[in-house]
C-alpha cells in the first residue's frame, strides 16, 4: 500500500465570517490576502510535506484551485517543483492538473521538469477542474470534456513522439512541438485519476490503466465506481486490483480523543469543504451533462440527512454568522464524523475506522487528508503527523499485507489477468460498510 498525505493548503487567515456571509470560499475578495502571511503559510506547508517524509509517509500530494482561499495552491506545479528538490524519496502526487484550463504543451513541459528534477517521483493526475475553475480561468465549460480529452491525448504525444512536429486540433494548435524536457518514467509517469465519482472518469481511468482516486466521497457510491472501473477493466481484458484504487480520507490524531475531536473542528472552518463554492459556480451551464449533475449530487449527499456536502447555500439567504458557525461546528461536523468523512482520535481510535475503510474499499493507495483550516497551528499539524507516522502507518502497512492491498508501485494497474472463466473477481467488500 502507498500511503500519502494531503492538505488543501488554505489561506488560513481568511476571516471566517466573510466565508460564511458569502456562503462560499470561492468569491471571497482577495483584499483579505496578506502576501507576507500567505508566503509564510506556503513555507509552512512545504515544511510539513518534508516532515511527512521524515515520519514515514510514502508520498505527498498537492492539488490546485483558483481564486479561492480554500486552496492557495493555484500553480501547484511550482510547489511540486520545490518538493522535487527538497524531498528525497516520496512520490509527489498532483491530484490533479486541470487539463481544460491549462496550456497542454506548457503543462507537458512543467510536469516533465518535475519528474526530471525529482528523479522520476512524479505521479500525475488529470482532472476536468471544478466549475469555478472554468470561470476563474475563463474557459468555456461546454467544451470541458472535449478539452480534457484533447489535452490528454496531446500530452501523451508530447511525451512520446520525437519532435519537432506540428499539431492542429479542435481546441489547441501548436506550430512547433519539440519539448526539451521529457519524463524519466517510461512510457509515462505513474498516473492516478482523481474523481468525485463521475462514471465517465472511472471508465476513462480503467481504459487507460490509470489508478482511480476517489476524493473523499461517501463510501457507498465509491464502491459503485470501483465496480464500474472493474467492469470496464474486465471488458478491456484485465482484472482490477487494489493497485487500481485510491481513497482520500480526512484523519487527524491527537493524544486524546477529546483533543483530536476539538482539533477536527478546524476542517469545518468557514463551512469547510461543503462551502467550497456555491452551486452557480460549481455547475455552470454545460459543465456537466444533466445526468452527471444528478449523479454528483447523489455522491455528495449525506445518505442519512439528505444534505448536500458540496453545494453551499443560496446566496440570497440571510446569513446569521454566529448561527452558521454553531451549525458548522455542531451539526455539520457531527454529520461528517458520523459518516466517516472525518476521522479524529488517538491513533488507536483512528485505526478502527481506517481498518473498516481498508476492508470495504480495499484501496492500494490511502491518502490522509490532514488537518487544516483557520486556527490549526503548525505544531498541532506536526504533532498529528508524528502520531500518524509512529502509531498509525505501521499498523496500516501490516493490515495492507494481511488484506493483500498492493499499491501501483508494487503491481502495475492493468497487469493482472482475469480468472480463467473471463469473469472478474470482486474488488471491494460492500458488506463491511455497516461495520
Amino acid at each position, binding site marked *: 500500500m502507498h500511503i500519502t498525505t494531503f492538505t488543501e493548503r488554505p489561506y488560513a487567515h481568511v476571516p471566517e465570517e466573510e466565508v460564511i456571509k458569502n456562503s462560499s470560499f470561492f468569491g471571497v475578495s482577495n483584499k483579505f490576502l496578506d502576501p507576507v502571511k500567505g508566503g509564510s503559510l506556503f513555507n509552512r506547508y512545504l515544511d510539513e510535506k518534508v516532515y511527512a517524509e521524515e515520519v514515514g509517509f510514502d508520498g505527498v500530494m498537492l492539488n490546485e484551485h483558483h481564486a479561492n482561499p480554500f486552496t492557495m495552491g493555484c500553480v501547484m506545479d511550482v510547489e511540486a517543483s520545490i518538493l522535487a528538490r527538497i524531498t528525497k524519496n516520496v512520490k509527489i502526487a498532483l491530484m490533479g492538473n486541470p487539463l481544460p484550463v491549462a496550456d497542454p504543451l506548457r503543462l507537458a513541459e512543467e510536469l516533465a521538469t518535475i519528474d526530471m528534477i525529482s528523479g522520476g517521483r512524479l505521479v500525475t493526475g488529470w482532472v476536468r477542474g471544478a466549475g469555478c475553475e472554468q470561470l476563474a480561468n*475563463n474557459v*468555456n*465549460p*461546454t467544451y470541458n470534456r472535449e478539452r480534457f480529452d484533447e489535452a490528454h491525448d496531446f500530452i501523451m504525444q508530447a511525451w512520446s513522439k520525437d519532435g519537432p512536429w506540428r499539431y492542429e486540433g479542435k481546441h489547441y494548435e501548436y506550430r512547433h512541438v519539440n519539448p526539451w524536457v521529457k519524463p524519466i518514467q517510461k512510457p509515462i509517469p505513474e498516473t492516478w485519476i482523481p474523481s468525485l465519482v463521475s462514471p465517465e472518469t472511472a471508465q476513462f481511468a480503467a481504459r487507460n490503466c490509470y489508478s482511480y482516486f476517489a476524493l473523499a466521497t461517501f463510501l457507498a457510491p465509491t464502491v459503485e465506481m470501483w465496480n464500474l472501473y472493474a467492469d470496464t477493466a474486465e471488458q478491456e481484458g484485465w482484472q482490477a486490483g487494489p493497485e487500481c484504487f485510491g481513497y482520500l480520507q480526512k484523519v487527524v490524531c491527537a493524544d486524546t480523543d477529546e483533543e483530536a475531536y476539538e482539533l477536527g473542528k478546524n476542517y469545518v472552518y468557514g463551512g469547510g469543504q461543503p462551502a467550497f463554492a456555491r452551486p*452557480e459556480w460549481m455547475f*455552470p*451551464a*454545460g459543465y456537466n451533462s*444533466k445526468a452527471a449533475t444528478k449523479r454528483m449530487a447523489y455522491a455528495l449527499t449525506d445518505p442519512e440527512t439528505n444534505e448536500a456536502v458540496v453545494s453551499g447555500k443560496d446566496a440570497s439567504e440571510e446569513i446569521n454568522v454566529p448561527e452558521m458557525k454553531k451549525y458548522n461546528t455542531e451539526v455539520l461536523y457531527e454529520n461528517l464524523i458520523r459518516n466517516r468523512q472525518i476521522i479524529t482520535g488517538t491513533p488507536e481510535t483512528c485505526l478502527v475506522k481506517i481498518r473498516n475503510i481498508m476492508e470495504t474499499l480495499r484501496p492500494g493507495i490511502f491518502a490522509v487528508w490532514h488537518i487544516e483550516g483557520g486556527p490549526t497551528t503548525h505544531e498541532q499539524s506536526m504533532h498529528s503527523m508524528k502520531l500518524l507516522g509512529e502509531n498509525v502507518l505501521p499498523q496500516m502497512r501490516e493490515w495492507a499485507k494481511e488484506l493483500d492491498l498492493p499499491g501501483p508501485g508494487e503491481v502495475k494497474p492493468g497487469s493482472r489477468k482475469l480468472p480463467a472463466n473471463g469473469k472478474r473477481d470482486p474488488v471491494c467488500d460492500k458488506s463491511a460498510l455497516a461495520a
Partner: protein
Amino acid sequence: MATNDYTTKTISAGGSELVITQGGSGKPLLVLNEELGDPGWLNWKQELALTRTVITPQHPGFGVSPRISWALSIGDLANYYAQVMVEQGWVGADVIGFSLGGWVAAEMAAQNPAQFSSMTLVAPMGIKPPSGEICDIYQYLTADYIAYSVSNIEGTPEFADLFGGEVTAEQYERFQDATAESARFAWQPYMNNPALSHRLGLIKDLPTQVLWGDEDKIVPFSTVDIYQKAIAGSKVVTFNACGHRPGN
C-alpha cells in the same frame, strides 16, 4: 382561427431538423428567442397571430431542435437561419428578436438586410455596452438571473405564469440546455461581437426599431445609442421603469 391555435412541428431546413412553433396567418413574422430559450406562446403572440403568421424557431441545441455541430458563433447561427428563410420562402418576413435573439436578428441583417422587410430588436445583446457590463448569466442561478431581468416582478403580469414558483425539472432542463448552447455561441467575447456595430453599416433602408427598458440590468440601456447609430434610420422606443423583458 382561434388565436391560441398554434402548432409545433419539425421541418428539415438548412441541412438539419428544426422545430418551429407557428400560429396565425398572414405575412410571416419571425420571432427569435432569448438565451433561455422559448418562453412560450405569450399574449402578444396571440394578438399578432390575428393578422400574421407568427413563427418561432426553437434555436438549434437549446434542448428542442438538435444542435448544429458547425455553428460555433452567433454569426454561424444567423447564417443557418438565413438558409432556412430561403428554403422556407420566408424571405421578406418581419423579424423580432429578444436579447440573444435580437443579436441573431442583427447579425442576419448585417449579413443580408434584404431578407427582412422590417426588424425589431428588443434589448438585444451583441454589442459591448459603452458603460456597464452585460450580466454574466454563468455566475447566476437561472432563477436569480430571471428575477434580475425584470424590474418590477409584481407589476409584470405574465411573470408569475412563466417563471413563478420553484423551477420545475422541465424548466431546469430547458434552461440548462439553452444556457449551455448559448455558452458555445457566445462565451467569449461574452454575448457580443466586436465587429457587429461596424457590420451593421451594410443596412441602409431596413425599417428598424430598437426597444429597450431603461432599467435593464441584463444588457445596459446605454447600448441603445450604439445600436441606433450603427443602424441607419433606426428608431428607439424606450420603456420607462422597465427591465430586460418588455415582452413579458
